[in-house]
């Protein structure tokens, strides 16, 4: 666990977003937070299981379009 940072170090715009979110109830936060867009390849199979998380990461890199952002940098 790391050190606690000071609020003053948080960019003002983000701080305002965090404070606004803290005033919303959980149900409302959910409504704003979860979206659904079609992700090619990833969404095309109803079930996938990988022996290891490393296998999953490798599969993502080899099979998903790079613009989805699942590749390692």
């Amino acid at each position, binding site marked *: *666990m*790391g050190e*606690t*940072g*000071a*609020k003053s*170090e*948080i*960019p003002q715009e*983000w*701080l305002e*977003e*965090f404070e*606004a*979110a*803290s005033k919303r109830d*959980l*149900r409302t*936060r*959910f*409504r*704003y*937070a*979860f*979206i*659904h*867009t079609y*992700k090619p390849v*990833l*969404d095309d*199979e*109803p*079930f*996938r*299981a*990988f*022996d*290891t*998380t490393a*296998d*999953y*990461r490798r599969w*993502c890199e080899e099979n998903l379009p790079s613009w*989805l*952002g*699942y*590749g*390692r*940098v």
Partner: protein
Amino acid sequence: MAAFEYRQAEEIRDAFSRHGVRYLFLGKSGAILLGFPDTTQDADLFVEKSPENGAAIVAALRDLGFDLAEAQAAQIERGKDFVQLKNGPFDLDLIFAPDGIEDFSLAWRRHVEVAGFPVCHIDDIIASKEATGRAKDRESLPRLKAFRDYWLEQQE
């Protein structure tokens, strides 16, 4: 497939509780439960790897309406490290061995409860995102770390 809804999170919570599943919300869905204002597409659950928990997960998922063939259920029961489900009423990722978190019991010891939802501590959520090394996680990390500082101050 529509976006994941609060009602569905409640259904997970209630079904997993009925079957005694040991799990934690992880990833951005966990951060959102803690209050992080951002968007995501589906829920990530860190589930304990054990034969009992695997069987409980399968029973709970079937209660929720996931259409699991026997071979698929067997893979969950065996505890494959990463299972991606898109054969139910909503998308769900089951992660038995997330990057950056040593084991379930350690994460459970420092987890947070939000409206009955068991959620990984913000530091574990950040650790797992840092460990993936993915472009999409790298982009969200600075804001998530700023939220951590805000959230910890709120807890004092």
